[in-house]
């Protein structure tokens, strides 16, 4: 992988972040006919609206507003929350760290379960294990997060009373209790991730196991273990990495719903609260941070893929 590829990829990411910022800003501040009314509601007096417009600089041209905002963002100044008056950035970052904890735990659980599951289903293709896997995972990818969350709560919190349904305790305060509260949300996200990724792993493994080079390896007289775990697995894992990277993006989206249902004070919940309160600076900052995290994850995945896939010449 050469320096020019690195440069090109970074340039592309900068472009991505730029477009993201334009879209977020455009949708939240430019798109509504009058952002002031959106923020204050229908009952505000004309004087209140005019004052707000002045304060936010809404009377200027869209492009000017955007550039003003952008210059602020680049210097780390995201403004202050309209709801609490607190500076936006520290709140967002703290919320992000909680979301990332949730995401990391979910992805860790997913990796531990989805990879062996997918491999198993592929090696036992067509058998009862595979058919069952197919049915269950099919349903798994067809459930929206709130449905999965609801079912998980119904089963584990209400009927079986095993784990708490809502509430958040920081892990740094009390690890065990904190984990207990995170268990259900992590489980919810993991279930959907596991369904997606294990299907992908199975599909890639099946392709690999049917490939010509695996057939040639078998005809070389190598043991089945070696064929599956050395020859097939290597080739199946490569595309899986891309999917895992894409799923990080999915998690970041689905996390919004999960945090809302389980009352986890992460970035998703923060966004919902901000949206309901019409807290413009918070919404803008939250959306940009969320999307940027996704873009960075994509970049990392691309680099990882490029390092591992010898076939692709990145010149």
């Amino acid at each position, binding site marked *: 992988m050469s320096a020019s590829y690195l440069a090109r990829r970074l340039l592309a990411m900068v472009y991505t972040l*730029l477009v993201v910022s334009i879209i977020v800003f455009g949708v939240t501040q430019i798109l509504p006919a009058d952002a002031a009314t959106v923020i204050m509601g229908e009952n505000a007096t004309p004087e209140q609206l005019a004052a707000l417009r002045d304060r936010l600089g809404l009377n200027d041209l869209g492009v000017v507003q955007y550039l003003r905002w952008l210059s602020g963002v680049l210097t780390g100044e995201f403004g202050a929350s309209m709801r609490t008056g607190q500076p936006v950035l520290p709140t967002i970052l703290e919320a992000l760290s909680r979301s990332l904890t949730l995401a990391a735990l979910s992805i860790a659980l997913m990796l531990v379960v989805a990879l062996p599951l997918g491999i198993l289903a592929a090696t036992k293709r067509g058998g009862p294990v595979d058919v069952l896997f197919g049915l269950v995972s099919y349903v798994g990818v067809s459930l*929206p997060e*709130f449905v999965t969350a609801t079912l998980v709560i119904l089963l584990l919190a209400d009927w079986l009373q095993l784990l708490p349904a809502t509430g958040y305790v920081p892990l740094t305060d009390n690890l065990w209790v904190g984990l207990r509260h995170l268990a259900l949300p992590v489980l919810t996200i993991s279930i959907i991730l596991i369904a997606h990724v294990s299907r992908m792993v199975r599909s890639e493994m099946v392709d690999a196991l049917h490939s010509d080079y695996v057939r040639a390896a078998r005809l070389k007289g190598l043991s089945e273990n070696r064929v599956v775990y050395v020859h097939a697995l290597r080739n199946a894992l490569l595309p899986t990495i891309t999917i895992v990277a894409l799923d990080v*993006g999915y998690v970041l989206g689905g996390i919004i*719903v999960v945090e809302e249902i389980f009352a986890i004070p992460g970035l998703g919940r923060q966004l919902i609260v901000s949206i309901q309160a019409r807290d413009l600076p918070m919404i803008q900052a939250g959306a940009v941070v969320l*999307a*940027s995290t996704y873009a960075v994850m994509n970049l990392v995945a691309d680099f990882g893929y490029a390092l591992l896939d010898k076939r692709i010449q990145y010149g």
Partner: protein
Amino acid sequence: MAEVLRRLVRTPQGAIGLAIIALVLIAVLFGPWLAPRDPFAISPLQRYRPPGPVNFLGTDHLGRDLLSRVLHGASATVAMAIIATLAGTLAGSLIGTGSAYLGGRVDELMMRTVDAVMAIPSLLMSLLVVSMLGRSATNAVIAIAIAFTPGMARISRSVALAVRKQDYVSAAIARGEGAGFVILREMLPNALAPIIVEMTIRFAFSVMLFSTLSFLGLGAQPPTPEWGLMVSEARRFMHLSSWMILWPCISIALVAVGFNLLGDGLRDALNPRT
């Protein structure tokens, strides 16, 4: 068309998917007539009933018949989701095939932009659009259509490029056929199939997304019996009646599974070589 249907029911996915979606479409179109009771009729004495001879699926926290609400909800949930997907597919296909046809730097710039837009997760994008336009089912549809457009653009572009490389397209160009003929008669019939398959699977995703938006209070508004909204309302009363929350969940899952299966079945049925 009849040929496609015949091939479709030959596979288990196709047959089951078609059956489920057929049932769903019946519910969408004729739900209001099939519903035994008024979905909005409040009946305080009949609250939290489990399934029984009077209310086949039970009643909710206001005593409303769940079966009727679910049937009415079909059009609220599914029809909206279908419209959103169709709009997103149309817009995305035009952008994608146009980009593929133009090629060169225009194509690359457009695709980089599409990639950038896709950096915003669909749910987030929909949330932003709806929160700014106002909470309603219509705005949710618009939001989802916008969220889907870049993904469909990417797919239709890659399909268009793959078809463009085939020798029969080269043969047509070598014959001196005009651009219109090449695109419409040679490329499109072969490009349409993968796009239709992808769109069918997106119906499933759209139903999930629309119901999620309604769940969050940003889509359909009460007292519409939209399924996501029903789940959201039922959450508070989960301990009093599990049925209120289960039936809409099952409905959503059923529709999503049905569209996924149908999409898989169509993938095989539309392949001219099998």
